[in-house]
């Protein structure tokens, strides 16, 4: 066996590997527990204090303050910055910040940390990937779609590229609505091909599904509710409004070269009519904004994203707000009235944020930065000692940060992140990536994805608790493993038990322990008993991961 003579014996290689890993781990951890080793993002200090930015933030703050005053509510005080950092990480990357990142952000000057953190996140591929996945739910749903002619992964990856480049959002929307060609070469085409129903006689994209997606995702209008018949109970839309909009997609057709404008005009058989009729392409409101010339889908795309079509800006503001807060400003996320009225006014902030979004050319990163800078985003979800806790009315008026249940991938991502001291990102080692995808899939299935109705707040379920208490993912991530798990590495390298407990709290809950918690766990770690320190450290991890605050955005 010649190969044995060349390669060193297996046990020697294993030993070498173990030595390298342990030495490396020790070096990294001792650094992490003391100082920042992370590369700094491009960040202009003070930039987000300039009037052009501050004005929008101040206006939003004033509107909320006026609303709280009117409702007779005293808002919660600001949450500590780490809590806000955690909110941003969960909303934009789907995971909690790593211990390393927490050390880095804490090294920034006070007052600059939130915007610095956003500069960091916007440079992180995880952010664009995660935002793309969340937006894709509105664009193409969560299912795998038609076999062969739909590639969801390519679509999400393309969208992530767009977000990473911070391409103006109106341009992204127009690319989707007017997409042509092959779903493999032009990933945006999947927005159209996902609607092809391969079981129906009719070939080509489904106009009705496309019209429904476009109006809901881009305009926050649920006009598709009237696709089957007029709603005589007061809906403002008529059935023909919907089908006239669908007609813009009539020419979109499936050819050998992909999606092309070669189809027949859209026909529909209205109720109580014998024959289908050709339906004209007419927009349901603000017809003056529709360009007269161009292919039907190009005209529609221009109309949807027209700066005077405020529904587009409002819908986007509402969705971004929902991603950051866990619930939309207007519920449901895709149904915003086209006009407000004294009885039914728009919520505070909506119109100002929409204005700013339009004026600054649909700049998503700016929108996120403004929302993050508002007082309302920074409010605590609890009250300090001596004050009455926030009520449901506080939640309703955004006078306190309302708790929202984390989505399955946020919980899974947080478990995996809490087991690593450095940020798990797209550049991380392949082992992390593999673990992430396989285990994530299984975990998410069992935790229960609520599909597209994702901003509907529900309490936790028994399968979720069983999964967290007894499931494999948590067990694997908290057990004693000096190479893979932060629990062991913290225990091995922290100078004393107080530091062990503090680092563990920061890594898992993104906060420091209270005095009572610190005392309890330091005592638990040092007490002689039937458990080893390693087992006790695993139990500390278990308790934190199984807590309410781990599974909720607070």
């Amino acid at each position, binding site marked *: 066996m010649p190969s044995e003579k060349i390669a060193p014996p297996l046990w020697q290689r294993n030993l070498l590997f173990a030595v390298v890993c342990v030495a490396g781990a020790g070096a990294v951890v001792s650094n992490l527990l003391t100082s920042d080793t992370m590369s700094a993002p491009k960040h202009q200090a003070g930039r987000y204090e300039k009037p052009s930015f501050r004005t929008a933030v101040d206006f939003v703050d004033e509107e909320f303050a006026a609303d709280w005053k009117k409702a007779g509510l005293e808002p919660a005080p600001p949450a500590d910055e780490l809590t806000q950092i955690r909110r941003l990480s969960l909303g934009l990357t789907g995971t909690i910040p790593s211990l390393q990142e927490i050390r880095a952000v804490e090294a920034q000057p006070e007052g600059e940390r939130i915007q610095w953190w956003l500069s960091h996140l916007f440079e992180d591929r995880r952010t664009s990937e995660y935002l793309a996945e969340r937006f894709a739910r509105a664009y193409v749903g969560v299912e795998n779609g038609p076999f062969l002619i739909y590639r969801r992964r390519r679509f999400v990856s393309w969208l992530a590229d767009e977000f990473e480049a911070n391409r103006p959002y109106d341009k992204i929307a127009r690319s989707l609505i007017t997409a042509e060609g092959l779903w493999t070469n032009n990933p945006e085409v999947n927005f159209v091909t996902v609607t092809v129903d391969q079981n129906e006689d009719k070939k080509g994209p489904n106009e009705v599904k496309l019209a429904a997606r476009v109006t809901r995702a881009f305009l926050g209008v649920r006009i598709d509710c009237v696709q089957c018949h007029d709603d005589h109970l007061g809906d403002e839309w008529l059935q023909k409004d919907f089908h006239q909009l669908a007609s813009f997609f009539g020419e979109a057709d499936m050819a050998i070269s992909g999606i092309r404008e070669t189809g027949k005009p859209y026909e529909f058989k209205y109720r109580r009519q014998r024959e289908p009729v050709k339906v004209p392409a007419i927009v349901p409101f603000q017809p003056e904004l529709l360009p007269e010339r161009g292919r039907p889908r190009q005209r529609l795309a221009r109309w949807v994203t027209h700066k005077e079509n405020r529904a587009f800006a409002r819908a986007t503001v509402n969705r971004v707000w929902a991603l950051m807060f866990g619930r939309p400003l207007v519920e449901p996320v895709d149904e915003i009235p086209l006009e407000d009225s004294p009885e039914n006014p728009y919520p505070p902030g909506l119109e100002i944020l929409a204005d700013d979004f339009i004026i600054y050319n649909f700049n998503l990163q700016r929108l996120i930065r403004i929302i993050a800078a508002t007082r309302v985003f920074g409010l605590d979800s609890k009250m300090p000692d001596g004050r009455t806790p926030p009520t449901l009315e506080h939640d309703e008026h955004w006078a306190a940060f309302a708790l929202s249940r984390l989505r399955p991938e946020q919980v899974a991502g947080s478990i995996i992140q809490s087991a690593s001291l450095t940020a798990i990102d797209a550049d991380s080692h392949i082992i992390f990536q593999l673990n992430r995808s396989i285990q994530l899939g299984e975990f998410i299935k069992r935790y229960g994805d609520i599909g597209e109705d994702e901003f509907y707040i529900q309490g936790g379920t028994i399968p979720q*608790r069983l999964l967290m208490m007894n499931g494999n993912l948590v067990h694997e991530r908290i057990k004693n493993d000096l190479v893979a798990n932060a629990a062991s590495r913290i225990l091995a390298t922290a100078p004393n038990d107080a530091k062990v407990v503090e680092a563990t709290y920061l890594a898992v809950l993104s906060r420091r*322990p209270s005095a009572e918690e610190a005392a309890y766990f330091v005592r638990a770690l040092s007490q002689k008993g039937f458990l080893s320190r390693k087992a006790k450290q695993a139990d500390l991890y278990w308790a934190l991961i199984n807590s309410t605050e781990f599974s909720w955005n607070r």
Partner: protein
Amino acid sequence: MNNPCNSASHITRRTMLQTTGLGGLAWLTPVAHWLGRAQEKAPAHAPAKSVIMLWMSGGPSQLETFDPHAGKKIAGDTRAINTSVKGVQFAHGLPQVAEVMHELTLVRSMVSKEGDHERATYNVKTGYRPDPTLVHPSIGAVVCHELPDAEMDIPRHISILPGQWPARGGYLGAQYDAFKVYNTNGRAGNITARVQPKRLDNRLEALEQVEQSFARGRRADLDAKTTLHNATIQKALRMMSSKQLSAFDITQAPTKTRAAFGDTNFGRGCLAAIQLIGAGVRCVEVTLNGWDTHANNHEAHVTQNAILDPAFASLIRELRTRKLLDQTIVICAGEFGRTPNINAADGRDHWPTGFSIALAGGGFRAGHVHGATAADGAKLDPLDKESIHVADIHTTVQHALGIEYAKELMTPIGRPMALSDGRVIQTLLK
């Protein structure tokens, strides 16, 4: 221990057995609701108590199961066999089920408007067509909501071998979702603690420290009304140590009984369903995948029927033996039927206009056949009085369970919604 009722370690192993009091009543349903029901009059007839849904995922061919047209062009080479009811024939792949036809109620005139798997599954499982504004609860969720039960430690709505779209709680809330069991080895997933009882108690005490800290400055009813976090942990712990868990384990059944169901996951799932129903579970869904036979329809149905036949027949017999059939409604259904026309790939495509559903037990009229399809398999007219709509099945099942099906619940979007909006088909009932 400021707030012991809200703490996880309040329910450790030592105290768990003592908590069947108020905590038990709260299982899945508000206490007030339960107390209200206790004062209602029982219906005149003894209503059914539970439901077993055998879910034929993909949509079985009525022609190769319960509605053969042997000798006709649409049948291909499918033969017909006699059943225990004179004049009623099945396709040749179901000889054992044919022997229990006298216990079944067969509807051969099912019609719906849904020809897409996801939409049709939603339709048949909930009795409603998909609605963009809200999600309707599946039949099992409705049963659990309307017929609460104080004594159960294990979930009362269970999906064994769940497919792509398992039964959901919809607007009733995620706590009414079917509890999913992905195997038939006798253990539901994740119900065993990873550590010894003493160490689990340590962990729960540590968790309580964190929860106390979290509760500071927050509403006292946050857990009970919003997060359900610790309330759910209590229920999970109760389940983990419950004797009722043994209902998942079919190895306790006699070898001969187990063999009768067939050596398949579906067969074992059917036996587990009986044990679970016997233990007090309200609704068990058991899924058999593989009915979407766009190609080689007849061959595929040989395979599928070989799994279904012993399992379904044994399910009926065993429920009868255990005296559970009268209180249990069995539904064997898929999302639609398959086309009378055999396509170029020797397959059959989706067919929502004239398919079959078999029911049994719980006040349904045994040995009865309702409706018929034509020899050429022509579409049934939905307006024909013999046509049964999906909602009608739901309404009739709910009625047989003593549920006030027309009652409207307020949904989260503020729109009142009847539990079911079909008709009670009296001729299907005793």
